[in-house]
């Protein structure tokens, strides 16, 4: 055995020690329970997929993929998201009776980090996909379920920002005239470069009204009033239809009673080409990065031969935990310390406690070097040591 690399892990990989593991699994199970109660069925898919199918269909940039070769020389990827694998399974196995499909997952994902090696390259996402339902009700369900799952996990200070990529695309297309110019401007939004956006708009030969429409677009963030603002810059076409969808969505959000956690942000562009309609990001206190996101992706299923719409969302468990702050108290752990004379009695005592739902460690006292250290480690301790009834302590 070589001692090289004993404590090292590949870049971005982390160990999860018991306390963190338990905190994590509690958050995970409360979210999973909520998703199940909303009728989502959990599935699992392999960690490795073909690059040609899932790798290229996923929303993640190529340089963030972990790639490897199988024995036949095919390129494989460690799954960088769950949406593409689920679309693959749904298209090939599950979407047979033309009914909307509600699936959920809780899996580790892998994305190579470009900078600062300490950032996790493996992290867990809990999410849902609603496939084959093109109604706004499905979009609303994503938002309501996201809010209620996060509340179940104990998060209080969070906000969803909802946008509509169809509105952005059509507004830009109406004003700029062609796809390519619209794409250029969208890129500034995607890069969050508003200074560049304004300079670019200024440099285009546009009427002052159109220029003003593009400038005022940057302020389209806030509550319900944003819908009216948006209507004042698009009079017709798909853009207007998109605003109509947002209006219906707002009604749905209100009927779910989650409007206090939701705001509109029409400038939201989470990805250059992946999303096709309503989309959202989830922000929480104490974390500088979005803890989750979601949206409608109506073109993905087509890549797997089933042209149907879909929407979904996912929460990053590591960032959720960061926002929840600190480790939760671990479940109390009882220890039964025994000596060989009273072994059977100890086993019975432990079995009884376990039957009552307690977590019990059985420890032979001759295996413990430092009794004090041992007793301080457990929340409660029972000594079954020495001859029957004459234990030194109990």
């Amino acid at each position, binding site marked *: 055995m070589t001692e090289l690399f004993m404590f090292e892990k590949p870049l971005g990989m982390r160990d999860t020690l018991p306390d963190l593991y338990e905190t994590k699994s509690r958050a995970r199970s409360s979210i999973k329970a909520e998703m199940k109660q909303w009728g989502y069925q959990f599935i699992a898919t392999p960690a490795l997929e073909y690059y040609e199918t899932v790798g290229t269909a996923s929303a993640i940039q190529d340089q963030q993929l972990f790639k490897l070769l199988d024995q036949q020389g095919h390129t494989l990827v460690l799954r960088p998201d769950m949406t593409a694998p689920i679309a693959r399974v749904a298209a090939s196995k599950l979407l047979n009776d033309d009914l909307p499909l509600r699936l959920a997952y809780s899996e580790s994902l892998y994305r190579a980090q470009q900078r600062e090696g300490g950032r996790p390259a493996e992290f867990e996402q809990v999410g849902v996909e609603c496939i084959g339902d093109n109604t706004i009700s499905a979009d609303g369900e994503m938002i309501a379920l996201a809010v209620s799952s996060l509340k179940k996990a104990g998060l209080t200070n969070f906000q969803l920002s909802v946008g509509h990529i169809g509105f952005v695309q059509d507004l830009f297309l109406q004003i700029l005239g062609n796809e390519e110019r619209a794409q250029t401007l969208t890129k500034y939004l995607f890069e969050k470069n508003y200074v560049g956006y304004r300079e670019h708009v200024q440099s285009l030969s546009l009427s002052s009204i159109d220029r003003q429409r593009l400038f005022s677009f940057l302020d389209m963030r806030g509550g319900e009033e944003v819908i009216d603002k948006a209507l004042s810059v698009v009079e017709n076409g798909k853009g207007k239809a998109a605003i109509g969808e947002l209006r219906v969505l707002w009604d749905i959000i209100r009927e779910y009673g989650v409007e206090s956690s939701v705001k509109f942000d029409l400038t939201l562009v989470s990805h250059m080409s992946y999303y096709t309609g309503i989309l959202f990001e989830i922000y929480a206190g104490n974390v*500088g990065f979005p803890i989750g996101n979601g949206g409608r992706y109506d073109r993905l299923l087509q890549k797997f031969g089933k042209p149907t719409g879909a929407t979904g969302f996912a929460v990053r468990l590591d960032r959720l935990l960061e926002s929840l702050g600190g480790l939760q108290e671990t479940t109390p752990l009882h220890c039964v310390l025994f000596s060989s004379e009273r072994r059977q009695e100890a086993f019975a005592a432990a079995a009884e406690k376990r039957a009552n739902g307690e977590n019990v460690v059985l420890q032979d006292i001759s295996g413990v070097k430092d009794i004090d250290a041992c007793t301080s480690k457990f929340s409660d301790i029972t000594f079954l040591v020495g001859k029957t009834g004459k234990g030194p302590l109990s």
Partner: protein
Amino acid sequence: MKEMLTIAMPKGRIFLEAVELLRGAGYELPPEFDDSRKLIIEVEEEKFQFILAKPMDVPTYVEHGVADLGIAGKDVMLEEERDVYELLDLKISGCYLAVAGLPDKKMNDVAPKVATKYPHLAAAYFREQGEQVEIIKLNGSIELAPIIGLSDRIVDIVSTGQTLKENGLVEYEKITDITSRLIVNPVSYRMKDARISELVSRLSKVVNPA
């Protein structure tokens, strides 16, 4: 109760210019700051907390959300490519990025070398020009590199050109203009929406008088 806004910015001249802008935007700031050694300055009346950082680090603080906002040079933004919103051109500390070197010195044909504080940016620039160069990262006194023969060219910011001249260097190409930008963390931009929007609109009136 207003919530605290944390703003990261470089020490020294940019800090003073930024404070001047904030005063112009109607924020009540004390007439003088003792910013000689302090790393964090609080202005309780306006609920501001200023973090005084190295210019290159400002976008990092903002990306991680420990600062809601920041003031960073466009040079740093181009070099660091952090995931933050660039909301406003503050039009302070204007300068530009340029390629410079010794006069009448051609790029070495065998192994052209470029020294710079901005390796990422310089690499991207020469790649776009279709030139293969070796980038050498330095942390300061970049002008030294061509003089002692470490590199043929440097990529650095130029404000008056005085430093280049004093070291006997000339400018070859201008890459891009640089000013300081107001940047904001994407989460703060949503979670502290009201305060940040107000700050941006007040500042933009000072920066871009109608």
